[in-house]
C-alpha cells in the first residue's frame, strides 16, 4: 500500500496523470453524448466534467494536485481564445443582412443578459465574487474565464455558469421562439448565440445551417463586445 501511494505521488510529479485523466473523462463524455443521440441537455463538457469529478473523488488526488498538472491543457485556452477571431471574421459579412436588428440587439441584449442575471443573483444574496463570475454568463467560456479572473471573480465558477447558461439557451430558445410566433431562423440563431454562446451554437447548427451561422456570428460579436464593456462598467458597481 505505501508503494501504491508512492506510485501515485510519482505519477503526479509530471502533468502525465492529470492530462490523461482529463482526456479519458472527456472522451467518455463524448461517447455518452453520441450514444444518447446528442441531447442538448448533456453536452460533453457537462458529462465529461461529472465523470472527471467522480474520478477525482474516488482517487486520493486533491483538486490542487490535479490542476497543477492539468493546467497545461488550460494554457491552450489562450491561443484558442485568440483563434476565435477567425470564425468571427468568416461570419462577419452576415451582419449586413440584418444590420439594424443585429447591432441593436447586440448593443442592448448583451448588457441585458449580464445585468439581469446579476440583478437576480444580487437579490438572492450572492456575494460580489459570485456576481462578477455570473456577469459573463452568456459569453463563450474562454473569454468568460479571462473576464471573471481579470475582474475579481472565480474562473471555475464562471466556466460552470457559462456551460449551464448554454444548456438553458439550447433547450429553451427554440421553444420560446415558437411560442412568440417567430419563425425566422436567422433571429432564432442570433438569439441562441447571443445568450448561449458555443453550446447553443452547436444546437443551432443541428436546427439549420442558417441558424448555426447566425448563432456563430452572435457568439463572436457578444464575446468581443462583452470583453470591451464589462471591464469598463463592472468596476462602477463594486
Amino acid at each position, binding site marked *: 500500500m505505501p508503494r501504491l501511494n508512492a506510485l501515485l505521488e510519482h505519477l503526479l510529479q509530471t502533468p502525465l496523470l492529470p492530462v490523461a485523466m482529463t482526456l479519458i473523462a472527456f472522451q467518455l463524455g463524448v461517447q455518452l453524448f453520441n450514444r444518447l443521440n446528442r441531447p442538448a441537455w448533456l453536452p*460533453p463538457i457537462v458529462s465529461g466534467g461529472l465523470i472527471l469529478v467522480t474520478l477525482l473523488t474516488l482517487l486520493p488526488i486533491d483538486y490542487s494536485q490535479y490542476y497543477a498538472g492539468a493546467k497545461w491543457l488550460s494554457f491552450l485556452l489562450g491561443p484558442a481564445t485568440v483563434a476565435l477571431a477567425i470564425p468571427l471574421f468568416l461570419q462577419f459579412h452576415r451582419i449586413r443582412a440584418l444590420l439594424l436588428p443585429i447591432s441593436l440587439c447586440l448593443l442592448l441584449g448583451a448588457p441585458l443578459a449580464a445585468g439581469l442575471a446579476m440583478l437576480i443573483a444580487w437579490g438572492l444574496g450572492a456575494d460580489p465574487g459570485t456576481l462578477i463570475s455570473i456577469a459573463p454568463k452568456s459569453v463563450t467560456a474562454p473569454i468568460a474565464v479571462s473576464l471573471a479572473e481579470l475582474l475579481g471573480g472565480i474562473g471555475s465558477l464562471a*466556466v460552470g455558469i457559462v456551460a449551464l447558461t448554454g444548456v438553458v439557451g439550447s433547450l429553451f430558445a427554440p421553444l420560446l421562439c415558437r411560442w412568440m410566433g417567430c419563425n425566422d431562423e436567422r433571429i432564432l440563431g442570433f*438569439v441562441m448565440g447571443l445568450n448561449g454562446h458555443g453550446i447553443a451554437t452547436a444546437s443551432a447548427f443541428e436546427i439549420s445551417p442558417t441558424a448555426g451561422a447566425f448563432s456563430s456570428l452572435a457568439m463572436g460579436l457578444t464575446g468581443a463586445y462583452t470583453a470591451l464593456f464589462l471591464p469598463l462598467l463592472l468596476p462602477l458597481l463594486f
Partner: protein
Amino acid sequence: MIRGFTQILLFWILGESLHFLTAIPISGNVLGMLLLFAWLLLRQQVSPELEQSSQALIAQLSLLLLPGGVGLFFLGERMQGQWLAVLSAIGIGTLISMALCILLMQRLTPAEAKAPANKGSN
C-alpha cells in the same frame, strides 16, 4: 498548421504586451483576439493555415475547459448558500433576456423583409 499556430501565439503576445504596457482592463488573450480580428478585417482574407489551426483549437474548447471547469465542484464553503442565487440567475435571467432579444429582433426585422418587395416595385 504550425505556421498558423505561431501567428496565433504572436497575436497573443501582442495582446499580452498591450495589456501589460497600457493597463487596458481587457485580458491579453482577448486583446489578441480583437487585434487578430482587426488585422483580418484589414486584410479581408484568412490564410488556409490560420483557418486550419484555429479550427483545430476551437474544436477542442470543451476539453480545454474541463480542468478549470471541474474546479466548480471543489469550491466548497466559498459558495455556501449561494447556489440558489446562481441557478436562478442562469435560469430566469437567460429566459427573460432571450425573450426580450426575440421581441426586439422581431420588431426590427420586418423593415429588412420589405426590402425585396420595394425592389420589385421599382
